[in-house]
């Protein structure tokens, strides 16, 4: 499957996804890109609720798919750090879809890590309730105006926010992971043989 890319072909057909991204971005007042089949529209945090409800009304994006966040950090307690330096922030993502043609948009906004607040979407989409509770549990983001931001997943009395990059994995603290060196190398094989080719013409028949 060939992905749609952001570059406009010289004299080729226009990319429908990129056009759609531009339309949505124009309406909500943000910037939009279409890469790898996903339309992403970035807005500012104070227009978060308005952009999303406008997009829902204008483009029929009535299906609430999910809401979550990404912790962009340069120092990580577990896993690999980023290749290049990036601004430290939480990026809140929300995906909406329509129920006719299957178009979908992922809205994104950046919020500060030290004072992680953003308005709640539960008045626009009731389904956002649980997703925001999960984001609060995992990242510590406070959703202003949420009806009841109680823990959803974590047991009572759990300290910390697990999906933050500075939250360690207990198993790795106890025993350091040997790294990816324990993955066994593929055995030597013929250079001619195609790795995926079957040995008979139409096996399984």
């Amino acid at each position, binding site marked *: *499957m*060939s*992905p749609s890319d952001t570059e406009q072909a010289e004299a080729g057909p226009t990319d429908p996804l990129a056009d759609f991204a531009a339309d949505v971005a124009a309406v909500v007042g943000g910037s939009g890109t279409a*890469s*790898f*089949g*996903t339309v*992403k529209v970035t807005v500012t945090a104070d227009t978060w609720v308005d952009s999303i409800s406008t997009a829902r009304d204008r483009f029929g994006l*009535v*299906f*609430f*798919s*999910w809401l*979550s966040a*990404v912790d962009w950090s340069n120092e990580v307690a*577990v*896993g*690999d750090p*980023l*290749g290049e330096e990036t601004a430290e922030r939480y990026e809140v*993502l929300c*995906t909406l879809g329509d*129920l*006719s*043609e*299957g178009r*979908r948009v*992922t809205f994104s906004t950046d919020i500060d890590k030290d004072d992680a607040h953003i308005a709640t979407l539960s008045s626009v*989409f*009731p*389904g956002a309730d*649980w997703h925001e509770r999960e984001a609060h549990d*995992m990242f510590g983001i406070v959703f202003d105006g949420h009806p009841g931001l109680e*823990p*959803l*997943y974590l047991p009572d009395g759990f300290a910390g926010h*697990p*999906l933050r990059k500075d*939250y360690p*994995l207990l198993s*790795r603290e106890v025993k350091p992971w040997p790294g*990816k060196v324990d*993955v*066994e*190398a*593929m*055995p030597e*094989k*013929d250079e001619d*043989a195609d*790795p*995926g*080719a*079957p040995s*008979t*013409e*139409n*096996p*399984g*028949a």
Partner: protein
Amino acid sequence: MTSTDQDLVRHLSEVSVSVELETEDMTLNIGPQHPSTHGVLRLLAKVDGERCFDVRPVIGYMHRGYEKLAEVRTYAQITALINRIDWVSGYANEVPFMVAAEKLMELEVPERAQYIRLILSEMARISSHLVFMASYPLELGAATPLFFALRERERVLDLLESVTGGRFHPNFNRIGGVKPAAGAGSTQRKTVQDLPAGFFAETREAMDRVDGAVDQLEDLVAGNEIVLARTRGIGVLPPEVAAAYGVSGPNLRASGVRFDLRKVEHYLPYDRFDFTVPVGANGDCWDRWWVRLAEIRQSASIIRQAIDGIPSGPLQAKVPKVIKVPAGETYVRAENPKGEMGYHVVSDGGQGPYRLKIRSASFSNISILPWILEGALVPDIIAVMGSLDFVLGDVDR
């Protein structure tokens, strides 16, 4: 009326209302160990006689931290983990993640591999829906359909096992295609084995048996007056509410929305096959049962068409030994048996994702429980919960 008279009237009406509400209601704790909750789900319900108010689900008993784990795994290792999210339809969980990684790498997956993925995904759908056919009448009190449904499911699971080596957790996908079938792993001789001999004939027979079982189930359950009395008009879900909560899959289609991700998201070559999308009329428990029954038939038909038209060719695109996925992010979603399952992969060029967000169908499906169970009778809680067909692994990840 003077203002004091008005105040008096208002005060009196408030007094009478509060006296009425003085009856004690019982807080009923359904679960976490309970025969009907499909796993460790806890419902806190305030019950007045037989009616419930203020139902609150408590989840998280099965939270395994997939998203955190994914940050310290390679893409191949994650495949082994994610088929355990919705363990009833094991294979279907892997596909959207693979497609996401392949999109970021801009890989072209060979046709044969795509067909095999499609066949196994549809088998996973049949398996999951047959479990629903078995367990839902059991919750209503009818014990017999369970045996009919599970017997045919065993055939499908045997087929899955013959191809992938596992009944529930196949771990069969590889980046760029599928694994050469059971028997040709890295520790064995490199005779690449494709689908086992006789697979097509056995699958055709199994699909015939599945169709037969579906007809039997329809006779046994669909015409039954008591089943209709227990499920018609119960737990009605209007389509707008469903969409706003993110309810997807057969639950959404039962409410009348003709929307199937297999037709609009091109993650597998479904556009080559002829199948209809069954849609319900009212959005009650009966429609949710009926839509799944119809979907089993459609899946059997898709599998037959796929087997007839499967092309020969390689099973996996050429990929380097150590797989690094270039930087980028994408969200790929698929029509899983339970609903929309998607993976949002944020990659920064490493061997594992920087962030993996798993959008699981059952999480959104049961977020509707407080809304739909408001004012319901206690036996109806069971009927409605069962009809939503969720799995706790899918809810809690």
